């Protein structure tokens, strides 16, 4: 019943999406407003239908309707209700449904917001968005149907992959998908601009917030994924250059390049082709990532289904790339640049270098990710490109980007003088060098770590300096108190001052990554009862084991007493979770998060009688700076996105 409802909803949704796309174009070409309106209504109906399909599957998941195969494989009767809900994005078919639903909601939002606005663009925007929606629904109807029935109906489901039984499961995928889907709106407007030939910066202004919002969700999703990896996967790290991680990082890099380079077109009329190509590239990389991870073409720590899904995504990828290249070629004569670089010392050239670095960064990741495939196909050798390659290549590029992130915001558009640049850079430069020198004096010798500290502190100092100068200027001219002046800075130039906050977050993140990847202390040992292991300033003593029964698993905890500099600091209980249906246990790490370092304890194995246990203890320095940096990045983006009407209210308040 539920399955039929879902299937019927999807079939009608497919028909409506195709109708909407065609009606929008025909209605626009033939100047028939009624047909155009029916296309817009079609978008809303499509959204309602996909919502119905989504609710059908959720209903089946919550009520444990095991006549549906997807529910059998991704849910279990004894789950708490939020895990049942999260089962929706526990595997391929449901994730596609979630994606299609977000896509449909976004398209509906575009229609509702812009019904009588942007009339030149909207028909083609709707056509592109409905085309993408139709694609996702089609994939669900042919190779990956979430409503496939299961006979005979089992009494109990198999449950989620135990690694997904974590509260992060409720957050991380939603953030990531919001980011992915969000980029389709600027993409659709870019395509509409190309098709209609309205190639001024108009489409950029309309989609600015969409792109930045999508970027923010993607950023939050990636960093949240790192946190998940850190506290769930139990290997003591947060990023492994796994293909799935690269799949999310590549569109992030392209998207980051895009939200910077659009400013060059807005201010100087340059980089028109580049911006159109970049947003297509970003969307193409989202689809490429999905292809990589969903086609089973690469082996990875993430579990993926194999099947025809890969070919569908490959086909979509080809359509995106070919249509972009074709349209850009056809419109080449209208895409002449209006401005040129007047000086190497200008904001636009800083953005050019930033874009070049981001895109080459992206390309090196792409190369590293697909290299094993190429090597096996061409030379027949099996090769793995692991963390050493990515760390080696990413380090210097990231450092260069970090440096530009500091310099960029203080170079004026069109060009400045060396003297002016010197005045802007002198203070932060000295502070950065002092930070590097301090690290060196304190005994830190790794050149890349010292350089990262110096450049990151330089970036942070630039942000602080720009705030200080802004506040000082407002105090002088408007006579405002420091807090009010700070508020006014945001109110008047949210993008710049929000952006500087984001840069500050990146600086913290860089320090966290450099420290934690260089100074990690790691010890593993078998401990008899009462014996202790030393790591950094900690002593960890084994006191025994205890067991407990959870709803889905049996848990064996090791009991450890931790001493910090000989003082008893508390008890830690890392555990192993055993699942009746799973061959191997899953480690549940115990950790103390601190500002300067985390203590991280993993139970390796244990004696049934509790006489000994094997443990791994890690002291991870400054990992919390990564989470703080991520939070500050999101906060800064929110400040930059804050709606404009608050500004006019503030301006009015100021006048009265």
């Amino acid at each position: 019943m539920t399955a039929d409802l879902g299937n019927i909803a999807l079939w009608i949704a497919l028909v409506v999406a195709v109708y909407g796309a065609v009606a929008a174009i025909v209605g626009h070409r033939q100047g028939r407003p009624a047909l155009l309106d029916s296309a817009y209504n079609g978008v809303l109906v499509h959204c309602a239908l996909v919502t119905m399909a989504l609710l059908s599957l959720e209903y089946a998941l919550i009520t444990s309707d095991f006549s549906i195969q997807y529910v059998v494989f991704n849910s279990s009767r004894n789950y708490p209700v939020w895990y049942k809900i999260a089962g929706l994005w526990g595997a391929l078919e449901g994730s596609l449904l979630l994606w299609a639903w977000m896509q449909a909601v976004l398209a509906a939002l575009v229609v509702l917001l812009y019904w009588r606005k942007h009339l030149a663009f909207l028909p083609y925007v709707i056509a592109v968005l409905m085309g993408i929606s139709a694609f996702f629904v089609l994939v669900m109807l042919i190779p990956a149907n979430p409503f496939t029935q299961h006979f005979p109906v089992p009494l109990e489901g198999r449950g989620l992959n135990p690694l997904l039984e974590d509260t992060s499961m409720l957050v991380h995928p939603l953030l990531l998908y919001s980011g992915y889907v969000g980029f389709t709106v600027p993409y659709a407007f870019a395509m509409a601009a190309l098709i209609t030939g309205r190639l001024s910066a108009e489409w950029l202004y309309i989609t600015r917030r969409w792109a930045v919002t999508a970027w923010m969700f993607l950023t939050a999703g990636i960093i949240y994924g790192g946190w998940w990896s850190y506290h769930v996967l139990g290997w003591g790290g947060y990023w492994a250059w796994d293909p799935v991680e690269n799949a999310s990082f590549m569109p992030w890099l392209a998207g980051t390049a895009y939200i910077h380079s659009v400013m060059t077109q807005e201010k100087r009329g340059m980089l028109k082709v580049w911006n159109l190509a970049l947003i297509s590239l970003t969307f193409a990389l989202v689809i490429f990532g999905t292809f990589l991870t969903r086609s089973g073409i690469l082996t990875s720590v993430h579990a993926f289904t194999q099947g025809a899904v890969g070919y569908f995504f490959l086909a979509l990828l080809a359509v995106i790339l070919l249509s972009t290249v074709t349209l850009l070629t056809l419109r080449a004569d209208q895409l002449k640049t209006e401005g040129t670089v007047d000086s190497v010392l200008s904001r636009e050239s800083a953005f050019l270098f930033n874009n070049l670095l981001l895109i080459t960064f992206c390309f090196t990741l792409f190369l590293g990710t697909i290299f094993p495939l190429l090597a096996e196909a061409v030379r027949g050798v099996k090769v793995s490109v692991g963390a050493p390659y990515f760390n080696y290549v990413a380090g210097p590029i990231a450092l260069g980007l970090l440096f530009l992130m500091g310099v960029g915001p203080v170079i004026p558009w069109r060009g400045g003088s060396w003297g002016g640049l010197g005045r802007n850079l002198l203070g932060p430069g000295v502070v950065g060098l002092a930070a590097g020198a301090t690290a060196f004096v304190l005994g830190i010798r790794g050149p890349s770590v010292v350089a990262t500290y110096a450049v990151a502190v330089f970036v942070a100092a630039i942000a602080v300096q720009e705030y200080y100068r802004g506040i000082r200027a407002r105090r002088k001219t408007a006579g405002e108190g420091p807090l009010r002046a700070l508020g006014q800075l945001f109110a008047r130039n949210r993008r710049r001052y929000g952006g500087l906050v984001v840069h500050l977050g990146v600086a913290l993140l860089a320090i966290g990554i450099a420290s934690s990847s260089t100074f990690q202390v790691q010890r593993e040992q078998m401990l008899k009862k009462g014996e202790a292991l030393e790591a950094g300033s900690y002593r960890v003593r084994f006191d025994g084991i205890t067991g407990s029964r959870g709803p889905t698993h049996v848990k064996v905890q090791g009991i450890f007493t931790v001493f910090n500099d000989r003082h008893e600091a508390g008890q830690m209980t890392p555990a192993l979770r055993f699942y009746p249906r799973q061959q191997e246990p899953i480690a549940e790490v115990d950790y103390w998060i601190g500002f300067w370092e985390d203590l991280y304890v993993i139970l390796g194995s244990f004696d049934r009688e509790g006489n000994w246990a094997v443990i791994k203890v890690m002291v991870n320095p400054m990992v919390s700076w990564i989470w703080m940096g991520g939070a500050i990045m999101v906060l800064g983006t929110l400040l930059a996105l804050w709606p404009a009407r608050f500004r006019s209210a503030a301006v009015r308040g100021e006048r009265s």
Partner: protein
Amino acid sequence: MRSANRRVLIGGLIILAAVAYLVWTGTQEALIYFYTPSELQAEEIGRPGRRIRLGGLVVEGSLNYEPETLNYEFQLTDGTAMIPVQFKGIPPDLFKEGAGAIVEGQMVANGVFQADLIMAKHNEEYRAPAGTRPKSEELYRSLIKEQ
């Protein structure tokens, strides 16, 4: 004007060249090739100091384990050749005799492979056959002895 454009272009080319150099040296140094035991024996590729991966089955009865020191010694085979492997640390839970494993490390003297990483091959889709699934209570008792 033109000189500014040219300078930006030169700057860009320098960046591109630097990244190309990074990628080139990166692929020379940091790639890890995968071999089977017989490939490793036949081709003399396992020269000491080069980081590689070796994959095979852990030979039944070959596993020596000292719990005190976490030292492991075992043989990996692909049916034709056998390579002795040494490892110190905590192997993954699926690592056992008769099961597949991939080890990462390098050849040391006497044809011994010194591994610092073991990846047990495991089937993502593994499900215990229906009916033999232990009940939660049995599982609990098998794991822990109540005091």
